[in-house]
């Protein structure tokens, strides 16, 4: 029984991918896609009730169980959204059936990759998984075959590959550091072992390793100045992929980073990873919020907002301490839910208005009230205004930081404020003012969007104690 949960989380996407690769017909494949994602979600949920034993390759603990559930959940909702989205794309002829088949297959591969990366108990395996996920997204970003899409995918690919290489080098270094202590062979790459013995590792090697891992996986997280692929990939790919990218892939990469941070946290001789992460986080935050101002493409804008929030999260984990770590985890969860919800809305908006250019939309709350107000709510949430979830995490981050390092907190607050100003500057022109663009009705699947927003709202008001206990426990692990 115990094995089933994990194998399910891995096997179902794999099988589904194989199946979808061969099956024709959009409706059928879309349904299978949803069903598979749903099954995966159920398996993941079963992790809550029964926790499988950790093996040499797979591992489940509080940290990644949360992530797995989050990933599978967003994966599920996104699959529902993508069903209606892709349907519209087929009608509008932007995609052809073979590409749709390819798309669905890739979608499951992506899910497989991310789940594997999360539950891998082996740094090598995790590396492989993350790279697999990256490559699949590269393929999906280029799926529209337009100049922009190809160029974005190419950029993503090149930068991603370099990131892959750097991350691998870091992984090798970790192995080298572990080998003298743990001994040769597989054990020297197994998390559980590494964490136990990390105190005896050679600090210098760990330092170098962390630098490479930070840059390697940081590229995936989209931290400035390694972010370059992110905005274009979000803007040019299909919107479901943008949602998954922002909502999940970034998290997965950050998750890997956190694992290694735990390693360094155990080892006293190694340099504190905190300052590095804090610096990168603040750079990303400030950089991204200023980039928000000149955006003309709505998806690219929210991509930059993802960079901003990844910056905040990295900052929080860099600060460390129970409060900040808790806030970081919370912010991560809330951001995934909110940002994917926003992308759901944006996808439908772009389809309704027939464009992604902000200048061509306007008065959305009048032309499409449901979409418009959900977008407003999403932006309110992402801007960190109460009573939605992100406010709680930002509250904790800022207040806990200000008591410890006032100047950092001031930079943080400055960034957040500039970001809010930028977001609402654009929101005003999108959702309010004289209506612009087509006014027609759109068939949209509101369920995923509302589900996410409801969760975010609920979390902002009431966090279930179980979740809190988990996060606190994990926050303790993160040191």
């Amino acid at each position, binding site marked *: 029984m115990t094995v089933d949960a994990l194998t399910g989380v891995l096997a179902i996407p794999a099988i589904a991918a194989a199946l979808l690769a061969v099956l024709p017909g959009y409706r059928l494949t879309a349904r299978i896609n949803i069903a598979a994602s749903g099954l995966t979600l159920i398996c993941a949920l079963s992790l809550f009730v029964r926790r499988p034993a950790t093996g040499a390759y797979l591992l489940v603990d509080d940290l990644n169980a949360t992530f797995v559930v989050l990933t599978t959940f967003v994966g599920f909702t996104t699959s529902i959204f993508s069903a209606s989205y892709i349907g519209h794309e087929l009608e509008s002829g932007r995609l052809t059936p073979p590409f749709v088949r390819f798309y669905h297959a890739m979608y499951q591969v992506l899910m497989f990759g991310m789940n594997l990366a999360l539950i891998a108990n082996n740094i*090598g*395996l995790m*590396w*492989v998984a993350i*790279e697999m996920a990256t*490559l699949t997204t590269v*393929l999906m970003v*280029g799926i529209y*075959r337009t*100049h*922009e899409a*190809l*160029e*974005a*995918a*190419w*950029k993503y*690919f*090149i930068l991603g*590959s*370099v990131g*892959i*290489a750097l991350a*691998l*080098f870091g992984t*090798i*270094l970790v*192995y*080298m*550091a572990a*080998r*003298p202590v743990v001994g*040769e*062979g*597989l054990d*020297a*790459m197994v998390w559980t072992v590494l964490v136990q013995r990390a105190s005896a590792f*050679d600090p*210098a*090697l760990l330092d*170098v390793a962390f630098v490479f891992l930070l840059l390697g996986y940081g590229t995936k997280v989209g931290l400035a100045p390694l972010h370059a692929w992110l*905005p*274009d990939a979000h*803007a*040019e790919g299909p919107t479901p992929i943008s949602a998954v990218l922002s909502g999940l892939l970034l998290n997965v990469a950050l998750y890997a980073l956190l694992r290694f941070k735990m390693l360094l946290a155990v080892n006293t001789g190694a340099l504190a990873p905190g300052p590095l992460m804090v610096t990168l986080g603040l750079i990303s935050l400030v950089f991204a919020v200023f980039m928000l101002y000149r*955006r*003309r*493409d709505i998806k*690219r804008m929210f991509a930059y907002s993802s960079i901003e929030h990844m910056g905040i999260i990295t900052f929080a984990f860099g600060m460390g301490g129970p409060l900040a770590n808790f806030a970081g985890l919370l912010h991560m969860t809330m951001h995934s839910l909110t940002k994917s919800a926003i992308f759901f809305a944006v996808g439908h908006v772009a389809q309704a208005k027939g464009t992604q*250019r902000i200048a061509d939309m306007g008065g959305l709350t009048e032309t499409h009230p449901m979409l418009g107000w959900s977008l407003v709510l999403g932006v309110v949430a992402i801007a960190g205004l109460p009573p939605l979830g992100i406010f709680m995490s930002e509250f904790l981050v800022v207040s806990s930081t200000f008591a410890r390092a006032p100047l950092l907190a001031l930079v943080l607050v400055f960034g957040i404020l500039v970001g809010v100003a930028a977001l609402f500057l654009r929101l005003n022109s999108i959702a309010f003012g004289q209506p612009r663009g087509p006014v027609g009705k759109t068939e949209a699947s509101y369920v995923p969007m509302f589900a996410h927003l409801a969760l975010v709202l609920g979390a902002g008001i009431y966090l279930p104690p179980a979740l809190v206990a988990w996060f606190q426990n994990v926050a303790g692990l993160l040191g």
Partner: protein
Amino acid sequence: MSRIDFDIAHLLAGTLVLISFLELYQDRLYALLNVYAAHAFVLAASVAWQAFVQDAPHLYVTAVIALLFKAIAIPVTLHRIIAKLGIHREIEKVVGVGSTMLAGIGLVALSMVVMLRVTHGADPLAREDLAFALSVVLLGLLMMVTRRNAVSQVVGFMSLENGLVLAATGAKGMPLVVEISVAFSILIAFIVIGIFLFRIRERFDTVDVQALDRYRGERR
């Protein structure tokens, strides 16, 4: 391990660094490809040597891959592509060879400094090897950022990846090395003959990255 083994491994790794410098020095594509072939060949040799001294037979697979795929297949294909796309043979540089060399030397020095801080608990071979591998990686990256046209950037990336394989094989008893090298070969295959170059060829007439950049986001 005995002294002589160590020296040979050391020698091979050093040669790899040297050849990376040679790559930096080239200003013609064909020559660059040839040098890269040599690079890959030396890598294969070094991997094979590691396989021998660590008596880890699975590393031979990596060596063979390096030899057949990187030292032979890739250069040949690139020759083809260059000929087919009629890319002109000059390598457009951002900074001159001289300064590139200087930067390279600086990078090697940096990697030495960083690596030699490692305590002597880790065995010397690993340390030296890592130092060399790191410099190879950095040199590859340097090549990617100082060369303008795609082929040379690809070559830069591949030599970077050679450095990785060098490190991986140098790490005694590291699992998954073969898998990783395979994965990377696939990656490179993607880059070189993969869909992108293909699409790019049918959309633009050159793989010069700047031609791609003409279609950068937001320029609408």
